[in-house]
C-alpha cells in the first residue's frame, strides 16, 4: 500500500489525487503499526496510531485549504502547471 501511495504521488498530476495518495501512505503505516502492536503485545503502537490519525486529519484540512487557495490564484490543480519557482 505504501508503494502504491508513493506511485500515486509521483505519477498523478491532480493535486487532490496526490493528496489522497499521501493519505494512503499514512494509512499503510498505521496498519503496520497496529499489526506490530498486536503481535508484540505492546500498546504503544496503538497509541501512535491514534496520534497519527489526529495529525493526518489536521494535515488534510490544511492541505485542502492550500489547494483551494492555489486554485483561486492559478485556476488549476495540476501540479506540473504550477512551476513559477523554476530556474
Amino acid at each position, binding site marked *: *500500500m*505504501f*508503494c*502504491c*501511495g*508513493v*506511485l*500515486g504521488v*509521483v*505519477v*498523478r*498530476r*491532480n493535486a*487532490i*489525487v496526490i*493528496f*489522497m*495518495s499521501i*493519505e*494512503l501512505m499514512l*494509512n499503510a503505516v*498505521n*496498519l503496520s503499526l*497496529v*499489526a506490530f*502492536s*498486536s*503481535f*508484540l*503485545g505492546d*500498546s504503544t503502537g*496503538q*497509541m501512535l*496510531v*491514534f*496520534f497519527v*490519525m*489526529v*495529525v*493526518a*486529519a*489536521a*494535515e*488534510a*484540512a*490544511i492541505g*485542502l*485549504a*492550500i*489547494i*483551494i*487557495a492555489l*486554485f483561486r490564484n492559478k485556476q488549476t*490543480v495540476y501540479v*506540473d502547471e504550477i512551476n513559477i519557482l523554476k530556474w
Partner: protein
Amino acid sequence: MTFEQGVFYFLAIVTVVSAVMMLLQRNPVNSALYLILNFFCLGGLYLTLNAQFIAMVHIMVYAGAIMVLFLFVIMLLNLGDDKSLRQHLGLRMYLGIAFSVGLFLELLYILGFSSANNYTQQSPTAVEMGTVEYIGKILFTKFLFPFEITSFLLLAAIIGAVMLAKKKIIQ
C-alpha cells in the same frame, strides 16, 4: 484455512486492489470512492487485529470526516476528468515509476528475507488491549502529554485553515 485467515485474505486483496484502482482512475471522484472502499477494508483489518477502538476511530475519522472533506473540495473545484496518464509519459514519469517499483522490491526484500522473528501468533493480551477502557486508561496516564499537545496541533490547524480560505479583505 480457517475463517480468520480467509477473512484476512479477502480484506487484504480488496485493500490492495482498491488502492491500485484509485491510482488509475481518471475522474477524481472515482478515486475518492475507491479510497473510501480502501478505508473500510482497513477498518476490517484492524478488527481482525483486535484493535477495536482504532478500527472505530478509523472509520469515523477517515471514511467519515476526511473523505467527506475531500469530496466537498472536489465538488467545489468542479474539476473535470484528468487527462489520460499515457499522454504525458515523460522522463519524470519513468523515473518516478522506476523508483517506486524499486522501493517496493526493497521493502519486500527487507520484510521477507530479513532475520526477523516470525509472527504467527497474536499475543494473548491483544484482545483486552484493544478495548476502549484500556486505551483510555493509557491515554490519560502514559501518553497524557502528547494528548494535550495534539490539542494545540488541532488549534493551529483550524486557525491555519481559516486564514488560508479567507477572502482577502479589500480596504
